[in-house]
């Protein structure tokens, strides 16, 4: 808003400049100026009468302006009842810009709110979000003048809106924003949804398999959306603290999820940053993600809470990779999977190569990759179940698994609170082989002495698919004879396919946003009409505000005073 003194200053400068550039007058000596003064006085008499009439007109105008302006002044208005509440969606998608470089959705919301404020009855009061302090139109316009500062700092997704005459909710319909309004209050939802193109990193996390010794990997997922439906070009760069290690051009279809596993072994210790650049991208928040590999950086990983499990009605599809398909058939694991109604084995494939060669890419239809007596060099980008991996050694400590039976060890410690062990009792279970070592990212769910019997891994910092390692040979275990094995498999299938926590639960330094934030067009609200966007740049100011009228009156009064008392001629 233009300062009050600015037009006054400009006017004064103009008057001064015009006064200074007046041409100098020639000096002419005359016998006497008596007649000249009489002549000017006669002219002045005529001019005075005209001036008197103009003064009357101007004074009337000034009085009219001032009175009308004063009548609009908020301090002369009565309270006007309950205020009008303005509630702004604080979700990250509100910071998405409009197509073609326009302002953001939150700025569009502020513009719509300004329109509402200016069209409200004189003397109305307003509240913003959950703040119960009533504001005048001038004050609320000041708040709305900087929406990124004044409206985006309220992370509450369920704010309690103060009692109000009516509530205007400004949202794009994306994200869990549900303001709490008094029952019966007139509520208007103002959509600020403007479909636009966006690509974002939705997952970037280390994913160390329990059996992998080469070092951690990073799982990267990218989502793209485009209302036009065309291919979205994305440039991906991954860098460590020293240099860019990976640069890649991608072509994504809207709605496609691009997944990549990145070997972090060659990366320098410290943070790893992934960035994407997309032409026409309107939400820069999800264009960057970072992670700090706890193992490489020497810091503890952050255990991410799980907020909600994904409910499903279809059985989980399991792809089994075994050292040889025949070794899996008839095994205790196969029997347990067949007995589990919640899973559906979609295929059994043989592992290629004896020294942990990379397996074929699992078909996308599978939910869980199960490895029987083998482990891939590169973990799959999906939940994995490792059954009797090669790293398992004889419980006695030195003998190979093939040399069993040896003196078994018994499981003496379990984490009974873990959902994997719900309904499963493993204590005193004899095991003859156990994991040789445990990945630092994994936790022992059940141990036999100093050996790990069952390990759970992940999701590691930065999120990622989970994995479960059953580190002893089920076929040589009494567990295969017990119903606990079926329960364990059922729990494992559920736990492995649980949706991990997302968005705001992540550490801030990862830069990751809610996956729904990347899908900035997935709203049930109607998009903003085009004519609203066209009028966005027009001055959103009350045409005859009391301040404008008072200013006009002051200017006229100043002009009148100058011309009347000074007789100034330009």
């Amino acid at each position, binding site marked *: 808003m233009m300062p009050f003194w600015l037009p006054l200053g400009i006017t004064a400068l103009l008057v001064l400049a015009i006064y200074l550039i007046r041409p100098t007058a020639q000096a002419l000596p005359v016998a006497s100026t008596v*007649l000249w003064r009489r002549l000017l006085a006669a002219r002045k008499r005529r001019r005075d009468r005209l001036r008197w009439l103009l003064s009357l007109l101007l004074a009337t105008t000034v009085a009219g302006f001032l009175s009308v302006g004063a009548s609009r002044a908020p301090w002369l208005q009565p309270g006007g009842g309950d205020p009008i509440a303005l509630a702004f969606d604080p979700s990250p998608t509100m910071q998405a810009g409009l197509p073609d470089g326009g302002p953001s959705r939150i700025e569009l919301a502020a513009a719509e709110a300004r329109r509402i404020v200016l069209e409200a009855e004189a003397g109305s009061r307003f509240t913003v979000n959950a703040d119960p302090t009533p504001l005048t139109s001038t004050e609320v316009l000041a708040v709305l003048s900087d929406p990124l500062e004044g409206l985006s700092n309220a992370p509450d997704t369920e704010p309690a809106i103060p009692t109000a005459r009516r509530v205007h909710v400004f949202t794009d319909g994306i994200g869990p924003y549900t303001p709490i309004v008094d029952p019966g209050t007139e509520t208007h939802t103002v959509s600020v949804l403007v479909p636009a193109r966006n690509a974002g990193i939705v997952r970037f996390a280390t994913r160390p398999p329990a059996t992998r010794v080469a070092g951690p990997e990073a799982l990267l997922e990218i989502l793209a959306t485009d209302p036009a439906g065309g291919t979205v070009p994305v440039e991906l760069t991954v860098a460590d603290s020293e240099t860019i290690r990976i640069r890649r051009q991608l072509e994504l279809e809207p709605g496609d999820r691009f997944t990549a596993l990145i070997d972090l072994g060659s990366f320098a210790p410290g943070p790893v940053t992934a960035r994407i650049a997309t032409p026409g991208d309107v939400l820069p928040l999800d264009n960057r993600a970072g992670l700090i590999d706890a193992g490489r950086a020497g810091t503890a990983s952050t255990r991410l809470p799980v907020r909600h499990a994904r409910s499903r009605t279809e059985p989980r599809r399991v792809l089994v990779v075994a050292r040889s398909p025949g070794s899996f058939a008839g095994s205790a694991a196969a029997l347990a999977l067949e007995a589990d109604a919640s899973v559906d084995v979609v295929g059994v494939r043989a592992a290629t190569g004896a020294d942990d060669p990379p397996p074929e890419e699992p078909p996308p239809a599978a939910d869980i990759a199960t490895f029987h007596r083998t482990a891939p060099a590169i973990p799959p980008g999906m939940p994995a179940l490792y059954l009797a991996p090669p790293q398992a050694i004889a419980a006695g400590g030195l003998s190979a698994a093939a040399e069993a039976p040896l003196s078994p060890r018994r499981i003496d410690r379990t984490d009974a609170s873990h959902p994997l062990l719900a309904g499963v009792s493993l204590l005193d279970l004899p095991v003859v082989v156990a994991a040789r070592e445990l990945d630092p990212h994994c936790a022992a769910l059940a141990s036999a002495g100093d050996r790990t019997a069952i390990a759970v891994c992940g999701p590691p910092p930065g999120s990622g698919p989970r994995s479960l390692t059953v580190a002893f040979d089920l076929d040589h275990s009494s567990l295969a004879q017990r119903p606990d094995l079926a329960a364990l498999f059922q729990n494992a299938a559920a736990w492995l396919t649980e949706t991990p926590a997302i968005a705001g639960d992540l550490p801030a330094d990862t830069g990751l946003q809610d996956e729904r934030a990347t899908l900035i067009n997935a709203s049930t609200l109607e998009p903003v009409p085009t004519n609203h966007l066209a009028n966005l740049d027009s001055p959103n100011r009350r045409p005859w505000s009391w301040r404008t009228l008072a200013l006009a009156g002051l200017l006229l009064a100043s002009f009148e005073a100058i011309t009347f008392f000074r007789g100034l001629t330009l």
Partner: protein
Amino acid sequence: MADHSVFTFEPAFLARLERLRLLTRRVPAGGFKGEHRASHLGSGLEFADYRPYVEGDDVRHLDWRAYLRFDRLLLRMFEEHGDLAVYILLDCSHSMAPTPGPGGRRKFDAARRIAAALTYIALATLDRVTLAPYSGHVHQILGPLHGSRQVWRALDYLANLDTGGETHLDRTVREVFAARRRRGLVIVISDLLSDTTEGGLDLLLPLRHDVAVVQVTDHRDLEAPLDRDTTLVDSETGDSLRIHGAPNLLHRLEREAEAHREEIRARCTARGWSFIHAPVEASFEELALGALRRGLLSRGR
């Protein structure tokens, strides 16, 4: 340095002047004998009228023949003749000669010629003449002069006058008549371009003089190159006045000068005074035998 050239009159013109005398409606009693008929009847030689006798009158003036014819006591009245006190106040301010040189002194020269002519006429008719040149104050006063032999002294005095200073007629009237109680004819010769003119004339009213105002004008005072903004500088006061070029401004100035003149003329007429306009563009003979004679002079002998 005396400038006598302005007083060079033709002998024939002088002869015509000698047949004129100053016209006045009031001649105060007393003073030297002159050619002016007094406003009252006294002990002169020319019979004037009768009036009824009242107690206390001198019985020597009773007309016994009329008493026998009309059976009423009537007193014979005779006209009394005396001289006229003439005060000539001559404006010598800077506005009378705003620019040096012969062309710039036209108003002052014309005013001096008028003063000289009136002095000549007054002295020729045995009037008493007092010359009081003034500007911001009264300069050295000459007179009262009496007798035609004083003409050359008066002309020499007028020839030595110069212009300068502002016009203060009011101050002049106070100074001149502070010690001069005798009523007479006051002749003010000026361009009247001063704010003090009206105030000075007002001061003459209670003194019960007969007053004649002679305004000397020069049309060049109403001319100025006004093609752009101009600052007019008053030659007397040095005051400046900024004006902006406007069409017909000089024409309106001329009309304003005429209006100014008519105002003073009306004021004089209302008081029974004479007002004579003497433009320098007219010849002096034309002026003296025309306007001056109509307003101020009458045929004498």
